[in-house]
């Protein structure tokens, strides 16, 4: 089997806080193949963004650190690279776009300058050439009148245009992997559709792989090849998008899909819910973390022992808590 483009193995990330070391990401693994889109879905605080940040080695310092595990980019372990080698990887090999482009862009510098900065950091070129390249990039991501827009400041652009600038900047050095952390959460549905369509088009043109982090299952269903469902720092279910939606195995995935208000749902009726809340990082059970909200009857053992990972179809696996492990059907 050829080496996958990006492989994350047993990644654990912790934050040193006043109350001790809190493990925000606990034993996460996934594989990303070239040209594919992996969706990471989960609620706020489940560790999606921390996972993304640790792939880039951009965890807040000094509190955050990678406790163990490997991030293999074409076989090279990023967690062990020295800082300057890592700096070359960022942008060149892995690039990232963020949820709120207004806070990610520098408000006192024209957007063109910010794209040029990214270009010049990675390839030696003249300012004039870099400017021309910036204009081309902006045109490529669908910004109208790029010659004028290069000189504008972020506040002069709409939310959708700002996100396009972010994408142009991220793609300026042809990364192999693009991490998009909630790229459309702050945008309207119509603009969201434009941005998702743009990402898909750019992916087809460049062959890059995308990790799309979102809490919106609709976005996942429409754009991703594979899905990883995260809950409280762990991946509880992972697999190709079709079986995940057609035959979700984990009660959390099932709950998430069920509690979305659907257009064909009878209006003004009670929606299915997932009762309760995510347990606090401070008292995370060692075993199944969903047990306190799980609708299935279960014994207290599942809280204390780590539940095994079980494959239930090609590439489709689930953290098989004892409460439903016997019912797992191959999809």
């Amino acid at each position, binding site marked *: 089997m050829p080496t996958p483009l990006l492989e994350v193995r047993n990644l654990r990330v912790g934050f040193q806080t006043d109350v001790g070391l809190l493990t925000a990401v606990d034993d996460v693994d996934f594989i990303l193949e070239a040209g594919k889109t992996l969706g990471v879905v989960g609620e706020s605080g489940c560790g999606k963004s921390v996972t993304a940040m640790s792939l880039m080695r951009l965890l807040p310092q000094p509190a955050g650190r990678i406790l163990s595990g490997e991030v293999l980019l074409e076989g090279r372990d990023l967690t062990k690279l020295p800082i300057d080698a890592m700096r070359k990887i960022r942008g060149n090999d892995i690039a990232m776009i963020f949820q709120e482009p207004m806070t990610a862009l520098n408000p006192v510098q024209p957007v063109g300058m910010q794209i040029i900065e990214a270009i010049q950091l990675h390839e030696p070129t003249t300012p004039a050439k870099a400017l021309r390249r910036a204009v081309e990039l902006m045109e490529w991501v669908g910004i109208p009148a790029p010659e004028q827009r290069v000189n504008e400041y972020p506040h002069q652009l709409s939310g959708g245009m700002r996100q396009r600038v972010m994408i142009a900047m991220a793609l300026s050095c042809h990364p192999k992997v693009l991490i998009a952390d909630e790229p459309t959460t702050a945008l309207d549905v119509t603009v969201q559709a434009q941005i998702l369509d743009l990402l898909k088009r750019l992916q087809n043109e460049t062959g890059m792989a995308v990790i799309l982090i979102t809490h919106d299952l609709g976005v*996942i269903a429409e754009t991703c090849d594979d899905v990883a469902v995260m809950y409280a720092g762990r991946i509880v279910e992972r697999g190709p998008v079709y079986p995940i939606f057609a035959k979700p195995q984990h009660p959390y995935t099932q709950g998430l899909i069920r509690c979305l208000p659907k*257009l064909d749902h009878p*209006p003004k009726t009670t929606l299915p819910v997932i009762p309760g809340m995510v347990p606090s990082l401070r008292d995370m059970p060692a075993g199944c973390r969903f047990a306190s909200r799980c609708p299935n009857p279960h014994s207290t053992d599942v809280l204390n022992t780590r539940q095994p990972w079980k494959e239930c179809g090609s590439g489709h696996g689930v953290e098989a808590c004892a409460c439903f492990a016997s019912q797992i059907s191959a999809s």
Partner: protein
Amino acid sequence: MSLLSVQNLKMHFPVRGGVFYTTQAVCKAVDGVSFELKAGETLGLVGESGCGKSTVARSVVRLLKPTSGNVIFEGNDISTQPQSALRTMRREMQMIFQDPAESLNPRHTIGQILEEPFIIQKMGTRAERAEWSVELLKRVGLPADAMFRYSFEFSGGQRQRIGIARAIALNPKLIVCDEPVSALDVSVQSQVLNLLLELQRDMGLSYLFIAHGLNVVKHMSDRVAVMYLGKIVELAPASELYQNPRHAYTKALLDAIPIADPTQRRERQLLRGDVPSPINPPAGCAFGHRMKHPKWEQSVGMDLTLKEITPGHFVQPCPCCT
């Protein structure tokens, strides 16, 4: 008779600037909006950001004084009432905000936050108010000991429950919900929506429900109004609007909803561009102008007030979009 009747509401903001800080332009955030809301009914209001949804909400509860037009609540025109009369009126109408973290005072305990409406309305003794606050917490599914805690000790969903408890404290008839679940996670969102539906059934509340999540609006509303650039372009019973949209903008909005089912992937007609600025909006049909529709010019100078095409289904009668 309807509980709330909004007639030709306009909210224009002057855009000032220059050396003498003169009015350089007018931002027509809401430009002639009319709708009715019956007791016990939910009217959904959808549209892209900047279309004036929140401005309508704020004008309805008179947090903003409308430039022109009337907001008639139970027979009284609140758009012209003096400030002093608003206090009694606000017993009947309350608001729930998008971000519960920002709409709850971080230095007040939940008890203080919930007692405040009673203090403002000069109701009850201290002991009674505390008792009522505990009742309210129970009503929204929070433990009584929340009284002595601060808002930052709660999760987003719980904070929104506190916001709801505060809104129902005075037994209002109308609650304006401005994006009440946009800041919440999916699993918590459905809990809060269920609570809102339950309260509506038990207390006979009317909601003006604003959200940009179209699935959520469909689920919550009896009727839905679609706003574009300060105007309502279509208003219809919820199921009718979603099954049989007539205005091109409504169709575009519905088409953009991502469907949580990978077997239903489809090519969509993407809307180009963004919502234009409400400063100097185009004449005629604003959406036809954005789409560069060949028939847009016919809409300039036309009377674009909503027309009823089938019972209860109103749509802007422009030649380009309908």
